[in-house]
């Protein structure tokens, strides 16, 4: 059998053609093939995503039946504690309003939000980006912050297609968001680690950062408002070059169960 058999010739021709396509193609949202394919298929993706979310919820419910009694008792206790907590919070609400204005945190009601369904995720890559069902036609732009209902940051818009967008989660290794520790005001860069981990890097040695502190966005980079919750600070350690501190962050959002997200269009 010669090397240039019909099969091998087909293979070589296909590979050369594909190399040519890869070389000429571009990754951005301007790629019309990608945009059109996603537009065609996004209604199916949305339907099945919502359906599978329901199925997962059902199985989760079945698995938790045994724990219902215990959970019920726990909830009753929690309810009592929360009633006391509400009374205390009413007092601090007024104080919070003053603090919020002092720290230039924008009240969440002022965000111009666009609700969107999560329709899929980059399952073949690192898994740290998701697709949503709103795009350019709804005024979505690259770099906008993406939050969940309680003002918790989950990521930012990375690519915008006509009717869909790709969101890079804060757990992505290449994602970099300006962050701040609420308690001490220490500033740093929040980036993803492998898997779904997140960390705060580039914190000055002069700053005091403690485990359990709250990490928020500092608003120093465009597109992301100040004051969005990111998570709780975990272990704090020295960076490899000993010039900065870095801290692991336990994100407040559960990235694997995102169903609906909100895009901050303006703030």
């Amino acid at each position, binding site marked *: 059998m010669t090397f240039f058999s019909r099969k091998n010739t087909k293979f070589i021709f296909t590979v050369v053609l594909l190399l040519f396509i890869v070389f000429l193609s571009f990754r951005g949202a301007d790629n019309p093939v990608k945009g059109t394919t996603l537009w065609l298929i996004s209604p199916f993706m949305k339907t099945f995503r919502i359906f599978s979310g329901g199925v997962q919820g059902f199985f989760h419910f079945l698995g938790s039946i045994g724990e219902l009694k215990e959970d019920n008792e726990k909830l009753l206790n929690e309810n009592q504690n929360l009633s006391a907590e509400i009374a205390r919070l009413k007092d601090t609400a007024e104080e919070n309003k003053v603090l919020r204005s002092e720290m230039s945190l924008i009240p969440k009601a002022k965000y111009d939000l666009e609700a969107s369904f999560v329709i899929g995720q*980059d399952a073949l*890559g*690192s898994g740290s980006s998701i697709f949503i069902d709103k795009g350019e036609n709804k005024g979505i732009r690259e770099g906008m912050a993406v939050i969940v209902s309680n003002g918790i940051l989950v990521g930012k818009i990375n690519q915008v297609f006509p009717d869909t967008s790709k969101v890079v989660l804060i757990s992505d290794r290449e994602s970099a968001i300006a962050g701040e520790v609420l308690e001490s005001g220490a500033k740093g860069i929040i980036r993803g680690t492998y898997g779904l981990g997140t960390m705060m890097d580039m914190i000055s040695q002069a700053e005091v950062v403690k485990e359990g502190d709250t990490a928020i966005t500092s608003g120093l980079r465009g597109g992301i408002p100040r004051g969005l919750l990111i998570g709780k600070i975990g272990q704090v350690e020295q960076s490899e070059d000993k010039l900065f501190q870095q801290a692991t962050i336990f994100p407040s959002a559960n990235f694997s169960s995102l169903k609906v997200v909100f895009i901050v269009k303006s703030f």
Partner: protein
Amino acid sequence: MKNFNLFLLILVLFIFQFSILGVFFQSGRIPNLFVALVVSLAIIFGFEKSLPWVVFAGFLSDAGSTWLFGSGILALVIILWLIDKVKAIAEFRSKRYLFAFLLFLTTGVSSVAFDISIELILKAEKLFSLGVSSASLNLSFGTDYTLKTAYTALSVIAVYFFVRKIPKRSNIILARK
């Protein structure tokens, strides 16, 4: 219409891959169903008959992924060709357990080969275009990656089962052993 079943199967795999599996599997552990499809197609149909379908599957995988368009198709076509070169696996169809083991092994190795190919393309892209964001699969051969490879290898059972049913329904002639 004779190939409609295969067309539909690839679309279903796409929906599963990008919309459904992410709900049930932890990020980073999601099996690569397209690799399982390519392994099944290569064994059942051979290189030439599978090529257009692999290109279609790769096209869809590229549509849902971060990397450059064409990278997924290229990686899948190379895997298809390599598996077709190792035809020996098809000889063991009658020896059920050995065949299943070889199928798992081939799929697992193909899954790793797919990721390495994509990573190489991304690295090449980074060389030519500076400032490209997210230009990495963040490959680290830890627990997550091992589980992802294992799940991919296991997923070939279901994919192979469905692909095997197609020739009977659509008069496609199987590749010669």
